[in-house]
Structures are given as structure tokens and as C-alpha cells.
């Protein structure tokens, strides 16, 4: 009985009252309207409508002046082979990247024809959805064997290859060290990857090492983060914008010293450098699944894949074409030295050279106009040349205006000499 008494003893009165008030307060809170932050815009409907009325957007595109150099394209009638008809005039082609002369090769064409007869033109789907043909698989196998890598993967668009491959591996938070002279496709790939980009001076290994050392000290401050941050170096085998090659052995040393992976872009060096045209050796292993331009885009038309396989066959069967190409490059490189007003930019064995003005005349626009006159002079005398085209506002490090000279195996020695002397003449008459 005593136990029951203590258990049923009533709480003190103030306790009950307090709890009662608390309960009433909770009920009030539950049912009261939520407190809204004042609307950011206290605009009335009429004011909103006025704003909508008044707003004037910019035109979708600004007008382009009719004489913009990039607007008026050269029209090539017929195939862009060794002898090319540009704007109605027949010229020797020093502008198309046809290094091994395979554009007009009969074997390549007949392989493509056979493929066309078997598969039609298009693949009607991406690789994942019935767009993988046996030709693609064969080409990938052959490329892997040729490049001496474990596996290879083909894309249907050259630009998209590096622009998709970089973001497939390098994501937000990773660090990429890239050469300043990297081409636009690499720049777009880096932009898409959202990684931290660090530019180092063109081919300057000391600068690169400095950046790597800085990164190392950063890493020591935060080892946990460092363990999950991937690091890459992106370089080109043969730079499109400057015509020289990257110092690969030093890069490999740096790679193992600082634990960085190398991305090598070989669009110019493949089929050009090396005894068998394998490009700058040392290749990166490739994953098939995740590149965007691979998964979400239609695969390469089979006739082009067949043409590529045949081209590989030719490259493997006649490795002497690479020596021939190199000899021609050296020849014209030498011949172009000493043109007053123009300087040659590029390695002596590079089949894609640039001719830049020794002295700029003040503005890029005027430089471009001057170079156009040189090009037109040459075109009128039967040598087809072009200026190197860039998107001036979009490039990170815009190269100076230049004339692009492309050397192919099909050009004879007389033609090379003719081109060199014509350029000398043109420079004389236009620049002096």
C-alpha cells in the first residue's frame, strides 16, 4: 500500500501548469502559418509584364562582315589529291594533310568500294546498339597490333576522339598539365572534363617540372586528397600549331618520378614519325565504355573503316614511304630557309610546317591580310596553299598567323623546288 502511494503521488501543481502551457504552445505552433521569407521580388503582375515587354535580347548571331577571311571558303572541284582544282584553277596541293598520298590510292579505294557493296554507307546506330560492325572490330585489332598496345578504339570523328577521351578519365578535381601549344580539340576536352588545368610553356620540361614540384608540395599538405586525385600530362606527338615534337623520353622520366599519367595525341605523328610510322611510341591503355563521343554517337561508316584497314596494310607493307616523306620534308625545310620576311616554324622532319611573318605589321588582321596576298600569289601560279585557321576568340594561346605548308610523298622534287622558289618570289613581291 505504501508503494502504491508513492507511485501515484501527484506531481507538484506548477509542473502540471508548465507542461500544459507547453502543450498549448506546441499546438499553436503546429497550426500557425509558416513564416515565409519575404518574396525577393515584390513586383506586381503588371510590373512583371512590363519587364517582359521591355526586355530586348541580343540578336542570335552578330552580323559577319562580308569580307571576313574565314567566311569565303575556297571551293575545291573534284578530289583534293596531289593536283587540286581550287576556285577553278589547277594547282599542286600543298595544303591537304595527305602525307602518305593515300587519298587517291587505288587499293584503298577498292577496299572502300567492297565495303560499300557489302554494308551500304551508314551504320544507323551507335556502337552499343547494333552499330558495331566486324570491320570496326578488325580495324581496332589491327590498330592495336600496329601501335603495339593492348587494345585500341576508334571514333567516328577525329576532333571528338581526344575531346571525349580526356573527360572519360579526368574528372572534376583531377589535375591536368597541358602544353600551351595544345590544339583546340585538346582544349575542348579539358574544358569538358572540368579538371584543374595547368599550362606549361611549350616543350619546356623545366617549367613542367616546376609545376609538378609545386603540386607535390600541395599534396604533402593534404595526403588523403592526393591519394584520390589523378594526375595527367597531355602532350601531342607532333604539334599541329608549331610543327615540333614533344620530348617524350624526358616526359617518361617525369611520369615515373611524379606518378603522372601521359595522354599522347598523335594525329599528326601517326603514320609519319618512327621507322614504321607508329608514331611516338609509348601509348596509353584505353577503356571502351565511357567516352561520350563513343557511347552516344553513331559509329564510323564501314567504308571508311575498310579504307583505314587498307591504309594500315599499305603502311605495313611498304615502310620505305616514311623515309621518302622524311627526305622530302628535309629538302623543303632547307629550301624555305632564308626567305626574307618569312620564317619557317617546325622541325625539319615535320610534314606540316608553318611560315610566319618575321615581323608583324602591328595588328593580327593586317598580318592575316598580308599572308593572304602571299597565298593568293602562289595560288595564281599553281601552288595551292592555305593559312592556318583558328578561332581567334576561343583559343587559349592563339598562335600567330601563318601559312601552312604540307608535304606529301606524292610531291616530286621539282614540285618542291618550285614551291620554295614561288614562295620566295611571293614574299619578295608582297612583303617588300
Amino acid at each position: 500500500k505504501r508503494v502504491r502511494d508513492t507511485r501515484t503521488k501527484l506531481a507538484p501543481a506548477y509542473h502540471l501548469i508548465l507542461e500544459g502551457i507547453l502543450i498549448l504552445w506546441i499546438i499553436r505552433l503546429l497550426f500557425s502559418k509558416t513564416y515565409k521569407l519575404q518574396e525577393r521580388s515584390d513586383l506586381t503582375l503588371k510590373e512583371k509584364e512590363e519587364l517582359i515587354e521591355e526586355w530586348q535580347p541580343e540578336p542570335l548571331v552578330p552580323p559577319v562582315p562580308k569580307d571576313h577571311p574565314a567566311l569565303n571558303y575556297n571551293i575545291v572541284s573534284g578530289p583534293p589529291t596531289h593536283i587540286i582544282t581550287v576556285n577553278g584553277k589547277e594547282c599542286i596541293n600543298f595544303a591537304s594533310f595527305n602525307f602518305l598520298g593515300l587519298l587517291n590510292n587505288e587499293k584503298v579505294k577498292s577496299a572502300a568500294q567492297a565495303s560499300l557493296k557489302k554494308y551500304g554507307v551508314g551504320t544507323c546506330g551507335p556502337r552499343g546498339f547494333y552499330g558495331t560492325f566486324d570491320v570496326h572490330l578488325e580495324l581496332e585489332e589491327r590498330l592495336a597490333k600496329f601501335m603495339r598496345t593492348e587494345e585500341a578504339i576508334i571514333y567516328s570523328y577525329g576532333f571528338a576522339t581526344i575531346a571525349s577521351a580526356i573527360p572519360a578519365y579526368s574528372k572534376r578535381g583531377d589535375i591536368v598539365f597541358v602544353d600551351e601549344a595544345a590544339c583546340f580539340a585538346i582544349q575542348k576536352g579539358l574544358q569538358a572534363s572540368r579538371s584543374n588545368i595547368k599550362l606549361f610553356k611549350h616543350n619546356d620540361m623545366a617549367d613542367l617540372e616546376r609545376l609538378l614540384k609545386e603540386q607535390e608540395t600541395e599534396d604533402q599538405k593534404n595526403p588523403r586528397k592526393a591519394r584520390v586525385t589523378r594526375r595527367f600530362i597531355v602532350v601531342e606527338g607532333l604539334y599541329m600549331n608549331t610543327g615540333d615534337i614533344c620530348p617524350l623520353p624526358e616526359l617518361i622520366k617525369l611520369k615515373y618520378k611524379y606518378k603522372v599519367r601521359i595522354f599522347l595525341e598523335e594525329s599528326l605523328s601517326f603514320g609519319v614519325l618512327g621507322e614504321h610510322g607508329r608514331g611516338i611510341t609509348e601509348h596509353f591503355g584505353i577503356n571502351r565504355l565511357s567516352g561520350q563521343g563513343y557511347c552516344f554517337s553513331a559509329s564510323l561508316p564501314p567504308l571508311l573503316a575498310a579504307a583505314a584497314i587498307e591504309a594500315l596494310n599499305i603502311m605495313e607493307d611498304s615502310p620505305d614511304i616514311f623515309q621518302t616523306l622524311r627526305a622530302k620534308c628535309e629538302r623543303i625545310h632547307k629550301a624555305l630557309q632564308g626567305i626574307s620576311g618569312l620564317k619557317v616554324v617546325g622541325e625539319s622532319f615535320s610534314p606540316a610546317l608553318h611560315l610566319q611573318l618575321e615581323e608583324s605589321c602591328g595588328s593580327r588582321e593586317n598580318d592575316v591580310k598580308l599572308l593572304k596576298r602571299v597565298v593568293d600569289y602562289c595560288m595564281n601560279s599553281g601552288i595551292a596553299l592555305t593559312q592556318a585557321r583558328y578561332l581567334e576568340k576561343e583559343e587559349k594561346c592563339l598562335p600567330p598567323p601563318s601559312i601552312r605548308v604540307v608535304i606529301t610523298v606524292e610531291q616530286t622534287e621539282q614540285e618542291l623546288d618550285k614551291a620554295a622558289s614561288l614562295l620566295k618570289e611571293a614574299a619578295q613581291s608582297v612583303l617588300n
Partner: protein
Amino acid sequence: MTDLKYRLAPASEMSRYCFPNNAVSGDASRCVCLIDSSTVEEINHIVHNGGLYKRPFNEAFEETPMLVAVLTYVGYGVLTLFGYLRDFMRQWKIEKCQNATEREEQKDFVPLYQDFENFYNRNLYMRIRDSWNRPICSVPGAKVDMMERVSHDYNWTFTYTGRVIKDIINMGSYNYLGFAQKTGACQEAAAKVLSQYGAGVCSTRQEMGNLDKHEELEKLVARFLGVESAMAYGMGFATNSMNIPALVGKGCLILSDELNHASLVLGARLSGATIRIFKHNNMQSLEKLLKDAIVHGQPRTRRPWKKILILVEGIYSMEGSIVRLPEVIALKKKYKSYLYLDEAHSIGALGPSGRGVVEYFGLNPEDVDVMMGTFTKSFGAAGGYIGGKKELIDYLRTYSHSAAYATSMSPPVVEQIITSVKCIMGEDGTNIGRARVQQLAENTRYFRRRLKEMGFIIYGNEDSPVVPLMLYMPAKIGAFGREMLKRNIGVVVVGFPATPIIESRARFCLSAAHTKEMLDTAHERTWKSWNRYSLHPK
């Protein structure tokens, strides 16, 4: 059928696909909703509207049944548990690890793949990997030959037996008008151009890569679309990713549909503009975004936006839905924004003469500021195009990334497009093009109707040649694909991450080349494959 009632659906019942009563154009457009009398699960909307829509717009996206949703989650849960178990076994070397591994010299480099990112790949994707990347060895027409491949290690590697599975009914390739042929006028013309021009161009459009063939193609495409001018590019994906950044930049606003293709998303991201997403095909959502954007301006600075670009697609290939173009155009005009229409799947496939979604709705092509499309699907070639006013195309010729840096289109591919466009337009002197467009429309309606009658859940617009059939459960993705292949039908199955996690589906792509017998065979075998797992569709 069940007892159907008609009434104006109240706001609370409107799904995201409903056309509202307070119409954009302001005039009295009514939304008439058919509501199943027993449950409110399926809502078909037929919009009768004299103002904006000249034809009925019939789209349906049935809600996932509750039981199915629960079972799907359970399925994924089981798979995840097994995944962890297998990872554990691999780590303790009980099971062999087949992953790509680092070379010895690079063992202490930061790994390329984070373990978790790869979890899905190793444990879920690998199990059903054989449903994708199936190699074929014939023209991807109505019937296709596939190389048989087997895997002895659960899909980690494949070996080819050397056998070829012949005459598989191809419902996976995007061959809407049947131009994927190895004989015929298109192929002959392409062969001629190939022998004359070669396979490549070796230069960019701005340098030495602009052939007379390209100019011819662009004039033809402009005529076909009914626009002033057009420009063609070598890759459809790249057309978006390289030209959107040329059109908009910082200080501009992009309003992009929820389910836009990866190329549009990439292009929008690369441009540097602010991106806002509106709900799929939902015009209220779009209007709200437009209003807020103009009224409030840029975030924080309140400066007015330089321009607003709306990104939509003609047909959304995962959903099978068609964009509500009349409403989008009305909105765009009211709010002075620009419209970028990606007709990758709809060009050639919609409209009485195959000119795409603009013709389908009977609209004026000049109302669409940027008409983009691809040549891969209905023309049997490769590449993309953009059409519009002359100033737009001139600007793109000068400032597009592709014009300055990418190699131009290959001449035989260009010829294929020229011939197929002429065929569709009827300029080759035959009726083939017209007949194919009509055949596709008939095939679409027939196929969808029959599947619906059988009780399958089909998404999308009744006129869309892309037919998604809902599978939902993860196990069914692989199973359905394999069963159909056993019965000689090739379909595409898609799961996460291309679709929401519980909405995996199989996708049929119809073609004008499919005959009625093929479609009937497909129906019958779909039914059989489904029933193998003895779960009734509804």
C-alpha cells in the same frame, strides 16, 4: 474497354504531361482528359485545340504500377548485395578478378577508376553486357546478320564462334526510311563518287576541305528543310557540342529539356552559359522559367540576360515522345527567346513528306531559329546539319569549331545524303521516297496499336517510330534481350543510367523497310519472350 468518362482534369490530377487550360496563346483551348473510370492510373490526353494544334496530340506515359516498382527496387537491392559479396570474394581471392589492372610499374599511381564508380560496371553491367555492342556483319537493314559470340567467363571476355546468325529482324538500328541498303540508287551514286573523289578530304572546311560536293549538299538540305541556308558537319554529336558554344556564351541562358541528349548537354556545358532544366515536355515549367528569367535577370547581378536559347528535341528517343512544338514556338515568340530544335530522330520520320516535326505540326520552318538534325538515322549516312537564316549560317561558317578544326565530311557519305534527300523529295523521278514515309507512318501506328492491345505498357506518342516497351525489373533487361535474340529479333534494351532506375525498357525502332509480316512476327515473339518469365504485363 472500361467505361470512359470525359471531363476537364483539375490541376491536382494533372500529370507532368498535361496541357493546361490556361493556354499560352490566351485563347480558349480546352484540355479534354480521358479518365479510366476504375483507377486514375492511365491518363490519355487528347488535345482538341483549334488554335495551336492542327491535329490530335496523343501521348501516354503510364504510371509505374506500385507492385512493379517495389519489386524492381527489391531486384536492385538483391543485385547490390550480391555485388558486395562478389567484391568481397574477389578481394579475398576466392574469386578470380577479371578487371583491367595496372601494369606492374604503375602500381603505386593513383588508380584510374574509383572503386565505387566501378561497382555498377563490375557487378550489374557486366552480367548483361552481352545485350550491347553486338557485332553485325551485314547492312543494317530490316534484317541483319550478327556474328555469334559466346562468353566462357560470364561476359568478361567474348570469343567469336565464327558462326553468323542470319536474318535477324532488326528492330534496333535507326533506319527509319530504310535507306541502309547495299544496292540501289544511293549506293551506286556513292560508289561513283568514291571512285572519283576518294574516301577522305584531309582538311578542314576553312582551309582546303570545302569541296563542291559540300556546297551542293548544303543547298539541297536548305531546300529540303525550307530554310534560307544550311551547313553540314561530319558528326551529329559534334554538331551540337561544337555549335552551341558558338551561339551562346557567358551571360546567356539556356533552357534545356530534362531528357535532352548527351550532345546537347555537353554543348550547353561547354558554352559557359547558365543552364536551367525544365520538366520533360512540360510547357508550364518552361513558361515559368522564361518568366522568372526575364523578370529577375542574371543571378546576383540582376543584369538582363543577353539571350535565351531553348533546347528541345523533335523526338526523344528514350521516351518516344514528340516535342510540343506549337506551344514551344508560341512561348518563344511571347518571350523573345530563340529555339534550337534537334531533329536527330524526327527528320525524315515525321511529317507527310518526311520534313520533320515542323511539317508534322504544320508550322513554319522560319519560326525555328536553329534547325539541327542528323543524317545518320533517316538518310543512312553519317553527320549532322544546321539550318536557319543566312546570317546564322554565315556566322557558323566563320565561328563554328567544326569549320575551323574538324575534317570535312567524306565525299561518298555526302553523295549518299544527296541521293537520299532527292529521293525523299521525289526529285529523282520516282515515288519511292513518299511511299517510304507513308509506310513508316503505317508501320508505326500498326505496331503500337497491336502491342497496346496485347497489354504491354508502351511509352510515347502514337506517331513516334521509336517504341519503348517497359520492362522495369533489372533482371528482365538481360533476359528479354536474350530471349528475343534467340527468336531472331534484335531489340535494344536500356537501363540505368540512361533511364531512371526503375524504368528500364526495351526499345523498338521501326523502319519503312519492315513488312507487315515482320511486324507480326515481332509481336508474336515479343509476347512469347515476355511470357517466358510468366509475369503478365498488367
